[in-house]
């Protein structure tokens, strides 16, 4: 049987995280394990209201780890995240699933984390000062790194951020792959490009090849072709029930190109 421990604050919950315990946020990941009988014997949770807080103004927005996809969609100031949040689950899952939990959602879920990776988000862990790059948390997510308290997201310049999720069932379907692009332009030249891919490896990852192909270039036909041609370079995408590794490698460049074109024309 599962033991559930509920704490008033995230710091207390973090201290209670003993070996073998699992943290439960919105429930969309951990309750599946509970129902399947494969959950950790001890679940730790908290009703800490700070986790549901959302600061949407300014150059950096702050999302409490317990902020749901529905909360993001209800906040006009977070419009750059709306196309991402809208593609997570169905309405019920968006009312439950949290931004913190999405960092730990294994493929074919976890597409919000792909967007956070491209945006250069930083993660605030409970009981620590300062924030770590989201890359670190995604890389170490199999180990217990601590509890995520909040996520800081730099607001992208208007029109510089794009996201696409490829799925076979619409409007709600799991991800074959997803692509997030941060491509700020200075005088028509791309600078500081970050490209993140989901479903193209063991977790969300940045594509160094595509970033190199785009950075310092103009978003013209030659650049688009180059980006498309290198999109699967050095990657080992999985083969699963949704698509083969070969299929993913073939189509990722096509979807990347379409995304870049849509950003250029918007």
């Amino acid at each position, binding site marked *: 049987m599962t033991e*559930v421990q509920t704490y008033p604050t995230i710091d207390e919950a973090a201290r209670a995280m003993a070996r073998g315990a699992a943290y439960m946020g919105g429930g969309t990941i951990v*309750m*599946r394990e509970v*129902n399947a009988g494969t959950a950790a014997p001890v679940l730790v*949770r908290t009703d800490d209201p700070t986790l549901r807080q959302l600061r949407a103004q300014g150059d950096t927005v702050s999302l409490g780890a317990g902020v749901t996809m529905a909360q993001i969609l209800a906040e006009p100031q977070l419009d750059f995240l709306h196309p991402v949040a809208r593609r997570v689950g169905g*309405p019920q*899952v968006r*009312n*439950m699933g949290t931004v913190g939990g999405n960092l730990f959602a294994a493929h074919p879920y976890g597409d919000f984390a792909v967007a956070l990776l491209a945006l250069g988000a930083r993660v605030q862990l409970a009981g620590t000062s300062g924030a770590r790059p989201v890359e670190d948390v995604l890389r170490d997510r199999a180990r217990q790194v601590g509890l995520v308290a909040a996520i800081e997201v730099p607001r992208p310049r208007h029109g510089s951020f794009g996201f696409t999720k490829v799925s076979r069932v619409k409007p709600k379907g799991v991800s074959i792959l997803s692509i997030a692009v941060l491509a700020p332009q200075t005088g028509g030249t791309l600078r500081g490009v970050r490209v993140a891919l989901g479903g193209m490896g063991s977790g969300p990852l940045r594509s160094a090849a595509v970033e190199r192909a785009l950075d310092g270039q103009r978003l013209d036909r030659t650049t688009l072709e180059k980006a498309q041609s290198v999109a699967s370079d050095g990657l080992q995408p999985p083969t699963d029930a949704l698509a083969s590794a070969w299929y993913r490698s073939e189509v990722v460049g096509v979807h990347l190109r379409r995304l870049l074109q849509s950003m250029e024309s918007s």
Partner: protein
Amino acid sequence: MAKIPVTFTHNGTDRAAFADPGQNLLEFLRRGLGDLSPKYGCGQGACGACTVTIDGQTQLACLVLAETVQGRDVRTAAGLADGATLDPLQEAFMDHFAAQCGYCTPGMLVSARALLDTNPTPTREEVIEAISGNLCRCTGYEPIIEAILSVAGRRATA
């Protein structure tokens, strides 16, 4: 392990019951309270058959820890009718043949009611989006969409 007392509102009525540690809301409602309207489909949050509203928001009862509804307002398809008087949505589902095997129907009704409560005149696309978390393997969805739109239309012209 000790059972957990939970007091909450179930379809407008104050209720108190004991939940088991780790018990999900779906089992709690069905076994503990005898409300058999939310259905067990996948237990994985994929099918929507267990959809209920908690404080007005649709959620999946199989993925909610029962003890977390303490003090909250839970509504299921069983609470839609007022005695023998059905909710207009239920009437519309019958008129449009929107149920075949019926297993998805309570979840569909809860999702549709939640949509109409916040958006009384949804577009077809908004209806599709609102029921996108509810799987139906019988109807092909068209009769369900038509049923929901018919209620929206009736309300809009009333």
